[in-house]
């Protein structure tokens, strides 16, 4: 499996990950090499094998909906890169 320059650009776009031209070139080679090593999985017969997402035998973990204290506004905003009027400040998302 060879990852082309365009494919790398496309994946980076899906991941909202900015890449330099140099990174794109490098990742195209490195990721192709890694994916080549994944080809080995084609040799495993997985017919009738159910996929395993999780190893613990727990399903649908519920708890009581109890009221408890949460964090103060100041605490939650303390790490905000930008804030205004006690809110997280973001760039405009509409034109």
């Amino acid at each position, binding site marked *: 499996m060879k990852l082309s320059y365009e494919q790398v650009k496309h*994946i980076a776009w899906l991941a909202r990950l900015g890449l330099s031209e140099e990174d794109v070139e490098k990742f195209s080679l490195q990721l192709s090499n*890694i994916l080549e090593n994944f080809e*080995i999985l084609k040799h*495993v017969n*997985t017919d009738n094998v159910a996929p*395993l997402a999780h190893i613990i035998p727990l399903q649908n973990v519920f708890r009581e909906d109890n009221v408890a204290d949460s964090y103060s506004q100041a605490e*939650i905003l303390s*790490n905000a890169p930008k804030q205004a009027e006690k809110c997280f400040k973001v760039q405009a998302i509409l034109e």
Partner: protein
Amino acid sequence: MPTDKLHQLTIHEAHMLLKQRRISSLDLTKSVLKRIVEIEEKVQACVTIAEDVALKEAEKADSYIKTAHEITPLAGIPTLIKDVICTKGIRTTCSSKMLENFIPPYDATVMEKLKAQRAIIIGKTNMDEFAMGSSTEHSAFFPTHNPWDLRRVPGGSSGGSAAAVAADETIYALGSDTGGSIRQPAGFCSVVGLKPTYGRVSRFGLVAFASSLDQIGPITKDVTDCALVMNAIAGHDSRDSTSVPHPVPDYTQQLIPDIKGLRIGVPQEYLLEDMQDEVKAAFEAAVDKLHELGAEIDWGVSLPHTKYALAAYYILAPSEASANLARYDGVKYGFSERDASNVIETTERTRQFGFGAEVKRRIMLGTYALSAGYYDAYYLKAQKVRALIKQEFDQAFEKYSALVTPTSPTVPFKLGEKLEDPMQMYLNDVCTLPVNIAGIPAISVPAGFADNLPIGMQIIGKPFSEETLLRIAFAYEQATDWHNRKPPLL
């Protein structure tokens, strides 16, 4: 006990001296802080030292110890914490530029548990960025050096924690393990490292890398200390829905130097052709020792799906990582690059400059494996292989109390040696990552040296068999003296 050597103590030794009031927590904490000042320039294991907080807490612990009838096993004893675990009020960076200035507003559950025992948090340790790596060279700040040979890596991703324990910069440390990140550095630094069963220790407050694989665990100077830390951190937590409501035993109860009659298997597939001869020889000698101690050894165990584990892991872990790391968008916390003209470009640039190369590589791999058209061939296939690997372990544990393997195929490698070849770096995890895929527990114990470079033995067990692993590890430790050796140059 001369007060300038207190940093060399284990937890159980320090506890005894504290209990007898022959030393104070303040003496102990000062000794450890002094040790850090002396050698940190060479080892570079720590990202943050919280000296003021530590000294204040030590004084508080001393007044508790003075009045208390019984003191908790970790009371007044200094610890370092891998910088992927949230510590309230103490910077938690994940060794990433993305979180360089992040100060968590809350403690991870394991931190609450340590604080309830009046443990002394002295600082945070270096790691591969977001726990992605096997050498600690992927830290955005600086690489950590192996105390046994400063030109070599300490392993990773919990390399800072393991190096600090080996160099006596702390009495013990916490690490996290997604594919070997506790055990491989423990093996490389000749200390004890345990990855608990998935669900045994709460992940609340552990910055997520691959949520179905991550576990927090102890890195300690000996097996007894490992059991003591497990007693403190294990248990159900309603804030982690994958934490298992299974009773927590007293892990020190099974620390008996007797393994007569236990059946231990050696899976052939872990003795790879390209494994270093010295590693193989040390491992075989360690297994002979287990036999001498009365265990029944089966050298002929076969787990044929082992060879697919690496590929499955490097699909599953990056896939989960690509989803988990989507949260770093520069809005609520973390690094933020705001020069771009629109919000998408802002997000892209925040992530471009906030993440290092290995993190980007794994986000790319994971995004690809989950993307339309490739999901079935990669992610779904890997999940099916995961099921087969788990099944194979389950079957083996019907016959054996434990399986043993080398912790890594090589001794610690040189800094820079594998940095430009990601696949070579990934291959270093080949003996440890099948354990995470199956969610089972495993411990690495010091098992010898080759030219003064440490070699580790990994002991693997069925789910919730930590007691058995600790018992085998303890029996082996008591019959050998590898754990008593200290790095020569420091």
